[in-house]
């Protein structure tokens, strides 16, 4: 019965959504204000109805209503509450509903907060957003129905996949999907600007804020995914260039490029059409990624069971690409742009260079991800590209971005000399060298080949140099205000926000370089035995058993001490878990992190009777730097969002 209510709610929402599309477009034709207002109300109603349907599904999970196929397949009565609620998005139908819910919410917010500068765009905004929403709601009624009944109703559920019973399951999908759906707003504003025929005065400011918002949530969601893979999957890394990981990275790369195009557009009016294209691509690729997983066309750790939803998604993607590009080809040339100019070497040129690198990287990652399809079409053999391919290109993109950050911050708009002259380059480089040596000393250089060592040294010097350029630029600006920090911070929040975010990017590049070195060791120990890794002394204290809420865990109690058996530094317990609802054993990895590296332990095999454990020990350098970099980037984005200059005028 409740399932039927849910279905009806979604059905009503789809009708209202279709109405809103029609009403908003008609309101332009007939110049009818009340029609537009009804479309606006319709958007709010769609959001409300979808929210009710989602709350209903949460309720049905809570009540263990196994008469619903989705609830029965993804939960069981012994599931702890937090996983019971997170099971909402455990599989295709629920995660589609989550996406629809978030899209309807951000659309409603965007539509109702349109400021008066952007008013002429409102009808097209509603039409664009509600078209996508109505399609998603129709999918939720047909191929992706979370309220489909199970007859006869079962007494017990199948349970939640053990890999998903993890804290990160509660936050990774919602934050990532918030990022994806928020990219719909720049997309809708781009469609609206093209339909309207010009950029409205408030266009750049609004699109910039929404892009920043999407950007922050995307990088947060991506990092949570990486952290989850790190602690759950047990292969010692956090980024495997898996197809779904890549398809979350690509929209983020486009969003980053878009942020920089908007900067130039706000400052000088140029690159407006580039902003349009990047918004369209970012939105398109967020759906392409989803299509890849849900259709099963490319296998990945994220693949849901193969479903007939594939062709529906493919059809949507073709339609979206075709109509958006057609609209662009027809309307974009009519958008007024400033007169062509000589860009030369200047701040805005470094921004263009940065955009080029980001888009290049997005193209390479897409190409590598979609290569299996291409190779199958051309050779008949499906070839899946894995991490080594992407890791070949990634460092050079990183170095290029560091160079862009460095040069960009030393240059000014519309001038082709670095601030304080060319000697600045010399000073900053001179300051970078001791910093690099200091870094090298603290982080240590582990086993690596000469080429890897050279690669990393170059990268570190580049990033340190970019950092000194950032510091120099900050000093230069503070100096211009005679170091009055209070007014500086009050009126330059967005500059400080982007400064911190750029430092975050550099820290991230340095952290990611740690993937190119690192040591590992597989060893079998009996209770009381020691082993060493990079000077740390690791002792097995015992193989023990622990029962938690719904699993039995066998764990190896390890003590990590300073070299030579000195002071006890940490105790970690890598474990293997057995869930009653599954035949398989799962790894529960444990790590000890210092700022400079992680000691990561996996319990590969154990014998509790013989008190013997086979451990895989990894020393992963600079992992913590990667997590810190994301925190810096998000903090920087928040500061920018809070800056009064970027808040809309009502």
């Amino acid at each position: 019965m409740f399932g039927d209510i849910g279905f009806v709610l979604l059905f009503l929402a789809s009708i209202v959504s279709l109405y809103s599309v029609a009403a908003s477009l008609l309101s332009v034709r007939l110049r009818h204000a009340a029609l537009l207002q009804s479309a606006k109300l319709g958007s709010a109603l769609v959001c409300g109805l979808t929210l009710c349907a989602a709350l209903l599904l949460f309720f049905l999970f809570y009540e263990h209503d196994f008469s619903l196929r989705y609830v029965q397949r993804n939960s069981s009565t012994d599931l702890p509450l937090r996983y019971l609620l997170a099971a909402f998005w455990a599989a295709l139908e629920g995660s589609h509903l989550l996406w629809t819910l978030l899209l309807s919410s951000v659309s409603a917010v965007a539509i109702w907060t349109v400021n008066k500068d952007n008013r002429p765009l409102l009808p097209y905004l509603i039409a664009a957003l509600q078209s996508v929403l109505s399609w998603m709601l129709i999918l939720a009624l047909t191929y992706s129905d979370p309220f489909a009944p199970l007859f006869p109703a079962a007494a017990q559920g199948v349970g939640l996949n053990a890999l998903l019973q993890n804290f990160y399951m509660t936050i990774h999908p919602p934050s990532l999907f918030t990022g994806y759906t928020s990219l719909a707003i720049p997309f809708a504003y781009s469609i609206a600007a093209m339909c309207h025929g010009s950029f409205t005065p408030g266009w750049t400011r609004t699109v910039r804020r929404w892009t920043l918002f999407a950007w922050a949530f995307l990088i947060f969601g991506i990092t949570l995914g990486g952290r989850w893979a790190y602690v759950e999957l047990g292969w010692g890394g956090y980024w495997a260039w898996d197809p779904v990981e890549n398809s979350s990275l690509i929209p983020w790369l486009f969003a980053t490029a878009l942020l920089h195009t908007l900067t130039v557009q706000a400052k000088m009016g140029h690159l407006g059409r580039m902003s349009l294209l990047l918004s369209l691509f970012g939105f398109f690729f967020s759906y392409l990624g989803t299509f890849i997983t849900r259709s099963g066309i490319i296998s990945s750790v994220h693949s849901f069971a193969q479903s007939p939803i594939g062709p529906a998604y493919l059809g949507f993607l073709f339609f979206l690409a075709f109509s958006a590009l057609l609209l662009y080809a027809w309307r974009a040339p009519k958008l007024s742009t400033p007169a062509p100019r000589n860009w030369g070497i200047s701040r805005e040129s470094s921004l263009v260079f940065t955009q080029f690198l980001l888009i290049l990287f997005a193209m390479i990652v897409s190409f590598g991800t979609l290569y299996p399809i291409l190779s199958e079409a051309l050779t008949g053999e499906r070839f899946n590209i894995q991490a080594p391919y992407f890791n070949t290109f990634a460092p050079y993109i990183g170095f290029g971005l560091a160079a862009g950050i460095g040069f960009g911050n030393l240059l000014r708009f519309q001038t082709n000399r670095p601030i304080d002259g060319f000697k600045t380059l010399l000073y900053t480089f001179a300051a970078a060298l001791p910093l690099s040596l200091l870094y090298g000393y603290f982080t240590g250089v582990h086993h690596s080949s000469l080429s890897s060592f050279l690669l990393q040294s170059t990268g570190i010097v580049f990033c340190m140099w970019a950092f000194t350029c950032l510091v120099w630029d900050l000093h230069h600006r503070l100096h211009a205000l005679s170091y009055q920090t209070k007014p500086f911070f009050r009126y330059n929040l967005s500059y400080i926000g982007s400064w911190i975010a750029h430092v975050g990017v550099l820290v991230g590049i340095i952290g990611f370089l740690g993937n190119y070195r690192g040591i590992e060791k597989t060893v079998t120990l009996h209770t009381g035995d020691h082993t060493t890794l990079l000077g740390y002394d690791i002792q097995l204290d015992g193989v023990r058993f622990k029962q938690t809420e719904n699993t039995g865990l066998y764990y190896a109690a390890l003590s990590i001490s300073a070299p030579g058996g000195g002071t006890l530094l940490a105790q970690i317990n890598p474990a293997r878990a057995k869930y009653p609802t599954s035949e398989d054993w799962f790894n529960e990895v444990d790590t000890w992190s210092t700022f400079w590296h992680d000691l990561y332990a996996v319990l590969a095999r154990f014998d509790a009777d013989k008190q013997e454990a086979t451990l895989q020990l990894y020393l992963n350098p600079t992992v913590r730097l990667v997590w810190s970099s994301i925190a810096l980037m998000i903090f920087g984005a928040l500061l920018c969002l809070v800056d009064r200059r970027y808040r809309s005028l009502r």
Partner: protein
Amino acid sequence: MIKTLMCFFAFSFWTHADPGADLLKQETQLTDDQALLYQKISDQLRCPTCTGISVRQSESLFSQQIRSAVIDQIEQKKAEPEIMQFFIERYGQWILREPPKQGLHWLAWLVPALFFSLGGLWVARFLFQKKGSI
């Protein structure tokens, strides 16, 4: 081909009650140089039953079989290209983690290079065109 592999797999499972322990013993008996070569090669072969990881990163039975075979090849004093060819002959090019630089797979390496060079030229032309004023 698949059937042969499955038979090989089943047979070795039967003859080695605990293949993990045997592999561990083999790994500890390698010299330092051999260990480095072993790591390098097992990094380049994909785990056939997993998603996205190499035989070195995986603890699945199939990966352990392959790693054991790598060690056998290394102990026969074969060089890296020979060993890689040994595995390509038995599993197909699919066993590699990145496209080999031969045949049609050159495309995988050419296309990014093309993106970079053509894109770079286009950006350079855009930035340094001599029309208009600052």
